[in-house]
């Protein structure tokens, strides 16, 4: 399937989903849907580095929080224009601030992408468990930084007051839902394009054997930097609307371990070698967690993730996509 057709198909599915949920006339479904979509973006972003290149990133929560705190930063700037800028600048700036959420998403993506690039440079020579520990450490360092940065709320957190309603969409959550749908389309298209391109081949060689990749002319270090930047940028974009979704952000929630665990578990369960794997994993796990939250307790979320992950690692290490491909191969051979 050609990329424009793939994008159109995604837009069609997204539009159908939006109108189905709207017809249900229940805003909770949008809240639930937003979380699942957010996980699709996070899992897809993680998979670009972890699945395609084989570099396990335990610091997803850090990149996600960079996006969230970039939004908080610009929101706070917008609230304190008089205190921060000379009088003659306040007028023109008031016409720009508050920045629209899509703009914050782009800025969050750029900031997180740059941090991803920096992480790539700092960890160029690290592999396996050492790389994973370095990314975890990055997340801890970022959290400590934010905890001590009072401008964005520090340890007490920051309140964001989104408008109740927006034109066309109505309730604000519907607007955020559509925004996250757009991010899903962007991230899935990006992942699929990578998979079918020269870049995808390069990433796969890094995952399989870096020494052999270099011997084939693959610039492994440059490709790793591309992967860390892209992955970080998409995670940051996923995190940017968070403050407007929950209304209150504090380091504990933005850097929550569950983001890191989920963004690893979802591609592992869905399958890491295809763009569809993280999406399937995120839809399955995200929905299960939301159902568990409303029927049992939010505390069982990570238990579900853990149990499913153990199950899949034992029974289907290549994830659902791997199971499907194996079944198709056997059918073809029979």
């Amino acid at each position, binding site marked *: 399937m050609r990329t424009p057709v793939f994008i159109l198909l995604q837009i069609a599915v997204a539009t159908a989903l939006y109108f189905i949920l709207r017809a249900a006339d229940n805003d909770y479904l949008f809240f639930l849907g937003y979380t699942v979509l957010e996980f699709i973006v996070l899992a897809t972003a993680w998979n670009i580095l972890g699945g395609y290149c084989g570099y396990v990133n335990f610091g997803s929560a850090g990149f996600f929080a960079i996006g969230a705190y970039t939004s908080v930063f610009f929101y706070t700037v917008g609230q304190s224009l008089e205190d921060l800028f000379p009088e003659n600048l306040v007028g023109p700036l008031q016409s720009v601030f508050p920045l629209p959420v899509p703009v914050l998403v782009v800025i969050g993506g750029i900031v997180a992408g740059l941090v991803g690039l920096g992480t790539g440079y700092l960890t160029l020579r690290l592999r396996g468990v050492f790389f994973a520990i370095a990314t975890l450490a990055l997340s801890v360092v970022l959290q400590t930084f934010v905890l001590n940065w009072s401008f964005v709320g520090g340890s007490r957190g920051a309140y964001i007051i989104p408008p109740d309603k927006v034109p066309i969409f109505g309730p604000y959550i519907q607007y955020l839902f559509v925004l996250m749908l757009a991010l899903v389309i962007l991230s899935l298209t990006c992942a699929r394009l990578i998979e079918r391109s*020269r870049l995808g*081949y*390069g990433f*796969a*060689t890094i*995952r*399989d*054997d870096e*020494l*052999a*990749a*270099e*011997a*084939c*002319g*693959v*610039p*492994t*270090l440059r490709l790793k930097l591309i992967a860390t930047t892209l992955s970080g940028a998409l995670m940051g974009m996923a995190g940017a609307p968070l403050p407007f979704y929950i209304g209150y952000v504090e380091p504990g929630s933005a850097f929550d371990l569950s983001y890191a665990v989920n963004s690893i578990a979802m591609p592992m369960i869905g399958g890491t*070698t295809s763009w569809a794997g993280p999406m399937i994993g995120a839809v399955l796990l995200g929905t299960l967690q939301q159902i568990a939250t409303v029927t049992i307790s939010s505390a069982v979320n990570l238990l579900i993730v853990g149990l499913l992950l153990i199950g899949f690692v034992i029974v289907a290490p290549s994830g659902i996509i791997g199971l499907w491909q194996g079944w198709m191969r056997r059918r073809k051979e029979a």
Partner: protein
Amino acid sequence: MSAPLLQVRQLGKRFGGFVALDGVDIDVAPGERIGLIGPNGSGKSTLVNCICGTLRNETGSVTFSGEKMDGLIAHERTRRGLARSFQLPRPFMSMTVADNIRVPLLYTVAFRVGHHVSKAEADDRCMELLKLVALDAKAARNPRDLTQVEMRKLELARAMAAEPKLLIADESMAGLSHSEVEDIVALLIRLNESGITIIMIEHIMRAVMSFSQRLVVLVSGKKIADGKPDDVIKEREVIGAYLGQ
């Protein structure tokens, strides 16, 4: 001898206190077939790794096609026409046999010709190379399905896909049967006849003698002999290194 394609001068490499290479000089002329031999631990693989940029040499220099290679990393040397195969085959296991060949086409040939290699072009070239090593029937298979000799052939075909001027075949015949060894030697000679200079590192003397036009012997990181194979193997130092003094 015409202007050398590869010129190695005073190459030195240490691993801690162990001297792996100690001032090695080698000149390779275009189109030559060279056998590089030496006992285990003599520095053959280290020499290959230093020439190809996998390891950094501490002293000396490598000049290829008139260009200094020092400071260039492995993929940059491959793109300039310096390809290698590995002692233990290292195929990309998540890809098909054909896709293994496609990688150097996409990353080395495309870089050299300065434009994108189309899918059709890449497909044709992949099949051409796979036919050359008699693996065309297994193009869509995973490298896991290949036998040991097929794996070695894939390794050579992948190195060839980079369209090298110089191919370094690092122990491409280790563990193969008599007929399989002959198969690989014939393949290497065919590649050489198509204009590629080849350095073959090997322990199997039968293969080395039938392949090489010139023989270089390394012992304890030093070059102890360099010349016609029939002359070199009669040298006292070479016999001593292989059979003991």
